[in-house]
């Protein structure tokens, strides 16, 4: 079957299971086997589901790995294996490899699984691996291999098809079906062996029945996967009816034979449930049923969910964005025309568009746990590799955020967590020496604050080492060498500088010179803000303030030559006309004197690689300065002219990001022309 259409579904659902498996693994590790029964069952179920899905998709490696993992978990579930560090290590490792092989399978990449497969198979193995009951594979598929069982009744031989899955169960179903025709006396191989799949492909039994051979064959074949049925004695016919001696023998071991009259009755009664045509409920009671259940059904319906491809939601969001922009233009035009009827309709349409936008935005909201749930595992691994003890708590898991915002925010949070584990929280020894509890506290929280979501990462570690930051800043000439202390804001500004890091050595976790600055860049690109407060010896708290959605923002439109650029209003404090007299040069840089302030000046033309505007000609208006307020500084951005304000729909860039680092995206304006969005927080 063409499974490609299911690949997305497979991936999404497998990831969810992997995430849940990791959660349960952590719980199992915390609580041990005693209270971990629920965890083991849940992990087992997750792995089992992944196995079924991957087998269906034809992802053999994933299916094989999940099968082995499931086998091991089953032994844990039965209490054959205890939960210890060695087991946990293997389970965590297996979950990682499973995840990798799932991603690999979907991307058509091979992920090596041999090592973990070997470990899974060998784990806690005390008994030799019993090969499945040796069956004579050499047997020809057309052969009848079992001797006829002796006894009374009609000899029935059944051979299953070669490809029949779960042959043992199928044999059981065949036997069960035949039992409806009469007593089954002996089965060879015995039923227990059949169920354990200890047979080649055929079995024989004796059936006491009065129905025709054709009927026996029909019933046997009706059980499915039957390749052949042979009824009657082998070779030279033996007496069809049992002799009295065999009969007496059979009474000793089998149920006593009944008279054929009772036999028939019994057969008939047993057949009833199967033979009776399915009872079609008459229309009347059916209708009444439906009416009676209508209320119940409605309540079930309320909680129904539909899965929607994220791209469809994105395109809805884009469309509503365009609509919002068009609304702006409509309102403008309507105001100009001064027609009360038109103004009325436009106002109403405008309100509806607003409602629609809110509704669509709500449909894109997902709870943060979808991303937060992978962090406990990360914290565990990171703290272990560093020999630290950390109590990690998550709060506000159910707070909702726009789907694409949530996708973007995962990495910055990882950076912050890693920073806290790597640099913030001390080793148990250091903590003891400082009079702190051996285990450090690390807390991740999300809360809603008006139209923003606030995410905090806080630890009770040593805090940012201001001395070292200061020393390093002096070394790089970032601060005056006479400076003796750093304020919170100064500290923040320094550590947010690209490439600034105080880590003494590069570790796996952080300290590659990316970290806080990467967080800054990303969060600002999302239209959010970062704040970091650190107290020596007490810990550090990083606060990310994010808009609920990154799709629609209000922006100031500014022109450079013939191009229009959008400047998000979040950071614009005012605009002023540029008076040439207000421009000065200070230490080789152009600055603007605004009231009592001196601001560095940037020119939009320079940023986009255009030549400076020719000297102002007579009659041409002066250039404009957009005053940009960032948490740590103010900048004057010189533009040719202003072109009004608009709600714009932010569209992510593809590809050209490296070359245009001052731009955070693009948008389509109300008149249909494209415009780049200026990311003021990236200004030097």
């Amino acid at each position: 079957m063409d499974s490609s259409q299911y690949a997305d579904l497979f991936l999404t659902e497998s990831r969810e299971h992997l995430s849940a498996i990791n959660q349960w693994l952590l719980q199992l590790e915390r609580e041990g086997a005693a209270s971990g029964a629920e965890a083991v069952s849940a992990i087992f179920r997750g792995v089992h589901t992944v196995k079924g899905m991957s087998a269906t998709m034809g992802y053999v490696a994933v299916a094989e790995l999940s099968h082995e993992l499931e086998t091991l978990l089953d032994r844990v579930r039965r209490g054959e294996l205890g939960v210890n560090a060695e087991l946990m290590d293997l389970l965590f490792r297996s979950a990682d490899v499973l995840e990798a092989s799932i991603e690999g399978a979907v991307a058509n990449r091979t992920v090596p699984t041999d090592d973990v497969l070997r470990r899974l198979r060998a784990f806690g193995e005390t008994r030799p691996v019993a090969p499945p009951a040796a069956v004579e594979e050499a047997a020809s598929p057309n052969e009848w291999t079992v001797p006829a069982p002796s006894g009374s009744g009609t000899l029935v031989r059944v051979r299953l098809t070669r490809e029949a899955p779960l042959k043992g169960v199928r044999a059981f179903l065949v036997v069960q079906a035949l039992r409806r025709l009469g007593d089954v006396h002996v089965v060879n191989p015995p039923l227990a062996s059949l169920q354990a799949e200890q047979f080649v492909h055929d079995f024989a039994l004796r059936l006491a029945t009065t129905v025709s051979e054709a009927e026996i064959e029909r019933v046997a074949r009706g059980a499915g996967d039957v390749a052949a049925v042979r009824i009657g004695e082998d070779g030279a016919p033996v007496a069809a009816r049992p002799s009295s001696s065999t009969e007496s023998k059979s009474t000793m071991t089998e149920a006593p034979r009944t008279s054929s009259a009772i036999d028939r009755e019994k057969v008939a009664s047993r057949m009833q449930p199967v033979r009776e045509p399915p009872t079609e409920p008459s229309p009347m009671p059916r209708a009444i049923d439906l009416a009676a259940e209508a209320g119940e059904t409605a309540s079930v319906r309320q909680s129904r969910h539909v899965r929607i491809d994220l791209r469809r939601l994105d395109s809805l969001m884009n469309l509503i964005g365009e609509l919002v922009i068009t609304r702006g233009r409509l309102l403008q035009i309507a105001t100009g025309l001064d027609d009360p009827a038109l103004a009325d309709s436009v106002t109403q349409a405008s309100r509806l568009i607003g409602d629609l936008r809110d509704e669509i935005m709500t449909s894109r909201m997902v709870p943060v746990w979808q991303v937060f749930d992978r962090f406990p595992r990360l914290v565990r691994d990171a703290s272990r590799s560093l020999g630290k003890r950390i109590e990690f708590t998550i709060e506000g898991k159910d707070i909702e955020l726009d789907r694409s915002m949530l996708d973007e925010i995962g990495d910055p949070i990882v950076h912050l967590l890693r920073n806290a584990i790597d640099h913030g929280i001390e080793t148990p020894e250091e903590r003891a020496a400082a009079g702190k509890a051996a285990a450090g506290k690390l807390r991740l929280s999300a809360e809603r604050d008006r139209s923003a979501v606030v995410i905090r990462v806080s630890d009770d570690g040593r805090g940012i080492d201001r001395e070292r930051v200061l020393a390093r800043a002096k070394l790089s000439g970032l601060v005056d060498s006479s400076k003796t202390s750093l304020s919170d804001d100064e500290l923040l500004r320094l550590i947010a500088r690209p490439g600034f890091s105080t880590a003494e050595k590069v570790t796996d976790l952080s300290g590659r010179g990316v970290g806080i600055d990467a967080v800054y860049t990303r969060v600002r690109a999302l239209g959010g803000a970062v704040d970091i407060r650190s107290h020596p010896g007490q810990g550090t708290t990083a606060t990310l303030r994010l808009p609920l959605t990154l799709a629609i923002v209000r922006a100031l439109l500014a022109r450079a030559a013939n191009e229009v650029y959008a400047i998000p209003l979040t950071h614009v404090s005012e605009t002023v006309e540029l008076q040439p007299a207000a421009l000065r040069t200070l230490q080789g840089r152009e600055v603007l004197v605004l009231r009592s302030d001196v601001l560095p000046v940037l020119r939009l033309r320079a940023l986009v690689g255009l030549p400076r505007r020719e000297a102002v000609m007579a009659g041409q208006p002066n250039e404009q300065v957009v005053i940009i307020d960032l948490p740590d500084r103010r900048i004057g951005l010189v533009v040719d002219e202003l072109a009004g304000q608009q709600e714009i729909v932010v569209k992510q860039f593809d590809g050209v990001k490296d070359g245009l680092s001052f731009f955070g995206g693009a948008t389509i304006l109300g008149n249909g022309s494209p415009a780049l969005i200026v990311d003021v927080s990236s200004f030097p």
Partner: protein
Amino acid sequence: MSHTVLICDDAIFMRTMVGDILSQAGFEVVGEAETGVQAVEKYKQLKPDLVTMDIVMPDMGGIDAVREICKHDPQAKILMCSAMGQQALVVEAIQAGAKDFVVKPFQPSRVLEAVQRVLG
């Protein structure tokens, strides 16, 4: 009138796939259940002609669900959806009242054959 089906599996992936196979064959999927408890509830509510039942589900497994459904309706036609290595569980399900089984990975033809046997 086409036969109605209730699909019980904790994986959306599996429900989608089984649902596709059956609806392409002209069945009407009237409900889906993610847990054994839901399967029993929905069976009572929807009275489907056929139930496909996963064995391993949270909140009451498939076998217990079969038992409950058959207690409520001995005529219930339930097809077990199993994986390799579950023979003992499938036998248990059949003893509990399930009529037949299919093994993952599903091949549409095999699923439809089994469904015909169960409904036959």
